[in-house]
């Protein structure tokens, strides 16, 4: 009876667990990399991207998907702000256009043509509520053929 009720109220099924475990185990089998190497890769990836935008480190997902018998890496890296606040604590407070201008200018200086225009575009981003925008960074490349 308890089993029935559990099922009725939608406990997650063990076949779903099996599917997920299988996905993960085959991912590491195919890429022939130890899980800690994948973790390191994820860390480095976040490191590089964080030089340009602020990302939500807790929510970064790096997955490997199969297409037929080749493998693709998919990274989902939520961007919380286009510019980094000091200290990088991950709290993108609403900033004044002036702040944005100076910091964004420092971060992406080579591309700045007109400081005025730059400030305006960034102000839009910064004055919006700190909603998390998920952007799919779709780095598709075959990594390893099995066997």
């Amino acid at each position, binding site marked *: 009876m308890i089993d029935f009720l559990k*099922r*009725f109220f*939608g406990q997650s*099924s*063990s*076949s*779903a667990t*099996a*599917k997920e*475990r*299988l*996905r993960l*185990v*085959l991912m590491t*089998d195919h890429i022939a990399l130890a899980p800690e190497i994948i973790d390191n890769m994820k860390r480095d990836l976040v490191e590089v991207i964080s030089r340009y935008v602020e990302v939500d480190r807790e929510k970064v997902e790096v997955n490997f998907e*199969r297409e*037929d*018998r080749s493998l693709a890496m998919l990274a989902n890296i939520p961007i919380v702000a286009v510019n980094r606040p000091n200290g990088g604590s991950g709290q993108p407070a609403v900033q004044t256009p002036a702040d944005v201008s100076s910091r964004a200018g420092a971060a992406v200086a080579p591309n700045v043509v007109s400081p005025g225009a730059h400030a305006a575009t960034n102000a839009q981003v910064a004055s919006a509520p700190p909603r998390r925008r998920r952007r799919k960074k779709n780095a598709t490349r075959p990594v390893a053929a*099995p*066997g």
Partner: protein
Amino acid sequence: MAVGASPARGRAIVVTSGKGGVGKTTTTANLGTALAARGARVALVDADVGLRNLDVVLGLESRVKHHLIDVLEERVSIDDALVASKHNETLMLLAAAQTYEKEDVDTEKMRALIESLRERFEYVLIDCPAGIETGFKNAIVGADEAIVVCTPEVSAVRDVDRVVGLLGNRFKPQLIVNRLRPLLVKKGKMLSVQDVNAILRLPLLGVIADEPEIIVTTNKGEPLALRKDGQTASAYHAMAARIAGDDVAAPTVELKETFIDKLGTLFGGRRA
């Protein structure tokens, strides 16, 4: 592919899985029985040297006098070593050696043996041992097709994935999902055929249910495929037809809904 009419070579198909205990031997015995029931000349080769079992599943253990290594080392002729089925004269077994090890098999001699069996049989089914070492290599050396047997479990799927990677494209592997329990699948407690093949992406030869009658027939040494009807026997016959090239759908396993199940559905129940 036309087989039988011409003196063309027969087909050599290895039945493999990587993982042990998923039903390779039972599958080999039943597919061989079903192919022979179609009138084809079939040789079953037990390549599991040291752990011979196909003779027992076929009920031929008391008739085996010589074995694979005897033939490979030219102590006896192939004809002397082949044992005919009790039920079908076109089905023959070449038993594995029990007192040897897998490393005792000479790979090139094994290739030559399968080749000469292909000259006299339309189908040579090779029962591969578990693992991916010497025994596996010797079992696949003479084959050019593969049937992979997988149960709906994480470990079995992983091992099949590995084996298919090792086989490469040459063997055109086809999948049998074995020991499926449709009620468990429905309840979300077992991987479905779709789940398994979303990973493996192989042509599906068919699905076999986890049925007590398979155990019973194995106990007796009489393969289930000796029967003409019944869900599981029919599934073996359908797979044999597919192997032979007939345009037959891959057998699946449907849940026989009981009254209680239907009642559950009626009350807006849980459809997993």
